[in-house]
């Protein structure tokens, strides 16, 4: 049961901390529209918010949020939602706004005489301030309900996808039909790109391939994650020379291309890249390409294969088998693109490919709760969010600052390196590195005869998995194992870790010596905001496993580097797919409750087989399956190759078996930049 009126605080994120822009009060149950246009009851005035963005559904028994097919979507905490109950524990996020449910007992809010019109005006005023005099801070504006009744548009695609097998003829005769093709990929990120690249080179013409996704640039999502986690274009990535999403052969690799470029400009130091490849990982540190170089190479390959002509802009909402052995994909395009027309579309494809990447950003519970309690304090960040404010603050203020870095993955290493760089500007920055448990020198994971090496309580390997996961013995062992054996192998290998980089190890050594780096072990029991003479700080009680007493840690910022969520249930579209067809799931790997979607070694989702129609998947959503390193350039390339080969053997149209001669002639075309 909810208590009326409902009080909501609306915060806006600008540079720096969240600012509260409004408190509003919802006096009765009903459906409240949220959006950019003034006709909504709750107006969020920013270009990133769609005209009609979402519904807030207030019922006797609880509150729910439903996205109305917005371009930038609606989130509860970090989970993207389609329609979901909302208990207020986590804020609703829409573009740069956060809507917090004010504790239901705090009902003492002053009711202004404001009408709906005033409320909306107050919110649509200039960004970041509540300019409306009738709505001073801390007071509430009452929002009246004027649009009752079940909103229509939230039903798509349920209105056409109510059955698990839908009629293709009915879809084609219906208002949403947008076309059909032979090869249809969902996601249009790097996984889709690499798949389309293989198909094109194997002989499929552009007109037979479509890829539906949010951004025409295949690496857009990846680049955003890289930028936020402190990998700007000149920084090096985390994969090797032959992980080449722009080149299916892996030759020439990025190392020789970089050397060649250097030599052309008489920079002989470029030869070191070749030596790195020659000696890695034992005699030299592994070569990794610059992110800018990788992006440029993908741009050029995208042009060569005609990616723009294959790309379809849209957000996929649902997938169904059709009664003519194909697949229907329902998606929605942005308001701008629809130009006032129908935004809901359905495309039908014979061979489906799903590569939607990470379903969500992980935010560990304690930090999430802190954020929800103190939304105006920009102190706790996920490393994958934009957290430049942290570096700006600590670099510009010469005061002592402590940053807690949580986790020991590759992102944590990079963040520590970034803080080390910040120390050049501010010598009194200290790092507290929080890890669950200590790991001794000889306590690294063991798989068969080998043991992973440990430095400074951090397990190290050349990349984020043992190298033989990308080809060679471990890949073969995992591929051939039964699901139960696989679970054991994954347990033994022990998930992803940071990369073995000398500079990263040295930074920690220097930090320990200099007293500005300190590892701590355990979980934070409490996070409190305390006021000190140096401003507000976060006070945490840290309890180590099996330890009675708790230690106190006081810090200015916490950066959570524990990763992204792989659980497909965080994606509304995949969740619907998994539930409709009862898709089998892989055993869990590295922390998530369940693994990804079960696929065969050919990356087919066999549970989705539809007569002669076939569905494939790639990337993080297949974690825990026949290949450990699914979420990597080379892993995506391998998955694409396997599924393209599988399609070729099936006799799918225009796909060749890709023997040595065709391979060679296509490689020559790649080298001379001719279309495949």
């Amino acid at each position, binding site marked *: 049961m909810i208590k009326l009126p409902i009080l909501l605080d609306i915060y806006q994120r600008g540079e720096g901390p969240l600012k509260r822009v409004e408190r509003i009060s919802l006096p009765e149950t009903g459906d409240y529209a949220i959006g950019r246009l003034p006709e909504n009851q709750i107006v969020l005035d920013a270009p990133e918010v769609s005209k009609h963005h979402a519904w807030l559904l207030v019922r006797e028994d609880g509150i729910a949020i439903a996205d109305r097919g917005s371009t930038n979507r609606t989130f509860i905490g970090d989970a993207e939602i389609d329609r979901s109950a909302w208990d207020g524990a986590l804020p609703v996020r829409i573009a740069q706004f956060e809507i917090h449910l004010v504790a239901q007992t705090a009902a003492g809010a002053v009711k202004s005489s404001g009408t709906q019109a005033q409320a909306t005006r107050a919110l649509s005023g200039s960004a970041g301030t509540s300019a409306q005099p009738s709505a001073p801070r801390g007071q509430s504006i009452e929002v009246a309900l004027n649009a009752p009744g079940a909103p229509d548009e939230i039903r798509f695609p349920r209105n056409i996808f109510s059955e698990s097998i839908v009629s293709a003829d009915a879809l084609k005769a219906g208002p949403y039909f947008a076309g059909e093709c032979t090869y249809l990929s969902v996601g249009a990120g790097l996984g889709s790109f690499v798949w389309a690249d293989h198909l094109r080179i194997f002989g499929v013409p552009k007109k037979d391939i479509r890829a539906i996704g949010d951004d025409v640039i295949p690496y857009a999502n990846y680049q955003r994650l890289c930028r936020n986690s402190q990998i700007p274009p000149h920084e090096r990535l985390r994969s090797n020379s032959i992980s080449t999403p722009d080149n299916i052969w892996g030759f020439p690799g990025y190392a*020789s291309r970089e050397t060649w470029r250097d030599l052309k400009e008489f920079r002989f130091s470029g030869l070191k890249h070749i030596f790195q490849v020659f000696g890695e*990982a*034992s005699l030299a540190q592994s070569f990794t390409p610059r992110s800018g170089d990788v992006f440029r190479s993908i741009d050029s390959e995208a042009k060569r294969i005609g990616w723009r002509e294959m790309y379809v802009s849209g957000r996929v909402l649902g997938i169904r088998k059709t009664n003519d052995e194909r697949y229907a994909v329902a998606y929605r395009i942005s308001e701008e693109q629809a130009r006032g027309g129908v935004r809901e579309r359905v495309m039908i494809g014979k061979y489906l490919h799903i590569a939607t990447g990470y379903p969500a950003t992980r935010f560990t519970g304690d930090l999430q709760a802190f954020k929800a309690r103190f939304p105006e304090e920009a102190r706790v960040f996920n490393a994958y969010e934009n957290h430049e404010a942290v570096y700006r603050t600590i670099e510009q203020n010469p005061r002592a600052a402590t940053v807690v870095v949580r986790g020991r993955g590759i992102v944590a290493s990079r963040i520590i390196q970034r803080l080390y760089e910040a120390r050049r500007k501010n010598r009194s920055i200290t790092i507290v590195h929080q890890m669950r448990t200590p790991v001794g020198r000889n306590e690294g994971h063991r798989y068969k005869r080998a043991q992973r090496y440990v430095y400074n309580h951090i397990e190290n390997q050349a990349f984020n998995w043992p*190298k033989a996961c*990308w080809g060679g013995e471990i*890949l*073969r062992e995992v591929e051939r194992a039964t699901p139960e054996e696989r679970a054991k192998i994954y347990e033994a290998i022990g998930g992803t870790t940071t990369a073995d980089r000398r500079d990263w190890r040295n930074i920690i050594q220097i930090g320990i010596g200099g007293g500005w780096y300190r590892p701590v072990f355990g979980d934070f029991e409490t996070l409190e905001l305390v006021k000190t003479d140096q401003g507000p700080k976060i006070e945490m009680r840290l309890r180590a496993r099996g330890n009675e007493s708790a230690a106190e840690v006081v810090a200015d910022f916490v950066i959570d580097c524990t990763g992204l969520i792989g659980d497909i249930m965080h994606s509304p579209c995949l969740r619907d797919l998994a539930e409709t067809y009862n898709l089998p799931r892989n055993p869990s790997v590295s922390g998530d409750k369940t693994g990804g979607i079960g696929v065969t070694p050919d990356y087919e989702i066999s549970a989705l087989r539809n007569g002669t129609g076939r569905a494939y998947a790639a990337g993080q959503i297949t974690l825990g399956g026949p290949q450990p390193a699914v979420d990597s350039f080379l892993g995506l390339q391998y998955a694409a190759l396997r599924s393209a*080969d599988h399609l070729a053997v099936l006799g799918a149209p225009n796909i060749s078996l890709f023997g040595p001669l065709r391979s060679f002639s296509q490689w020559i075309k790649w080298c001379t930049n001719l279309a495949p």
Partner: protein
Amino acid sequence: MLPTLKGRWLTRILLFFWIGLPVTLVFSIYIATPESPVLPLIGWNYDTLPFQILFLLLIVGLLLDPVYIHFQQYRWERDWPFAFQFFFSIVEFLIVLALVWRGALDFTRSPLDLHTPENYLLFAVHFACVFIPSFLALLGFIQIFMIRWRFKGGEWGRM
């Protein structure tokens, strides 16, 4: 490429046929004939000695592969850096030389003919001619023709 045992064997055999045999053929016709350093093709005058060396190299390699694989098991990455490949190729050649020295090929001709300094120099030149292109092939040229090879631990064929 991160080799498996079968992959090592198959890659070795592949390189033997693709690079080893053709290079040795050319080498034995033009250079390694007893009479003249550069002999005209007329009469197909060639020396079988380079072929015998190549064969020995193949056999020594095939026998050592299980040993390499065994050591690979102790490496967490289960990889085999190019530098190791390079180093052990030379070790294999030295083993072949030692075998010849100890009389492994004495049954083919008179030891007086065989164990001359010129012959040993020729062995080394021949080895370099076979080894350098083979190593470059491993570095990536094989992939141009066989795109699945690198994922299959060096095995050929389809997935």
